[in-house]
């Protein structure tokens, strides 16, 4: 699953550590999310959406969707 986390974070001039604190996760987890190596759980995805004040579908893109 692809996501726009890195772009959204850069737009707000946040570091990975800043985002990690906002989400209550480690910086390594933010990195794993940004590189697409780890897909978040539904609760974490909602938390990410709330943090960026955006709907989930504008952050995460299902690569299998037609």
């Amino acid at each position, binding site marked *: 699953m692809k996501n726009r986390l890195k772009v959204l974070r850069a737009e707000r001039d946040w570091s990975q550590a800043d985002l990690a604190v906002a989400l*209550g*996760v*480690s910086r*390594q*987890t933010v*990195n*794993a*999310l940004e*590189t697409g*190596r*780890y897909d*978040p*759980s539904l609760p*974490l995805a909602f938390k990410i959406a709330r943090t960026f004040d955006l709907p989930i579908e504008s952050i995460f893109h299902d690569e299998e969707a037609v």
Partner: protein
Amino acid sequence: MAAKQIAPWRWLVALLGLSLGLGATVGIYAAMSREASVGSLILMGLVVAGLMAVGVWLVAMYWRRLDEAAREAHKWAWFWGGNVALLPLIVGLFFLLERPDLQVPLWPGLHAGPAGYVATGGFIVVFTLLIGYSLAWLYWWLWKSR
């Protein structure tokens, strides 16, 4: 400081300290009492059980402080590291079943006899699983979060 604010690694360090303390306690006890009484054995068992309960609590605190990716790394390591590590153990087991007369070396510090050989097998199983688990965890964590 509330338990929830303590970083996960600190709980692991505490667990390591407890494990070392537990090992030292049992080792000193074993060295000092070659022929232990039943009462002292029960007392030692209670002390060890208590320390183990503290160890489980430390692990629970560590787990609660982990975020979901860190937990996923442990689950992945448990499944893949544990299962793959079983393979050489199973091969070794079948080999031993086919060669019952084989002279198997004992784990360092153990005495020849049924208990020594059972303990040797236990050590080999634990360390092999631990190595598999650790390698799998390192692979997941370093690859996913680098």
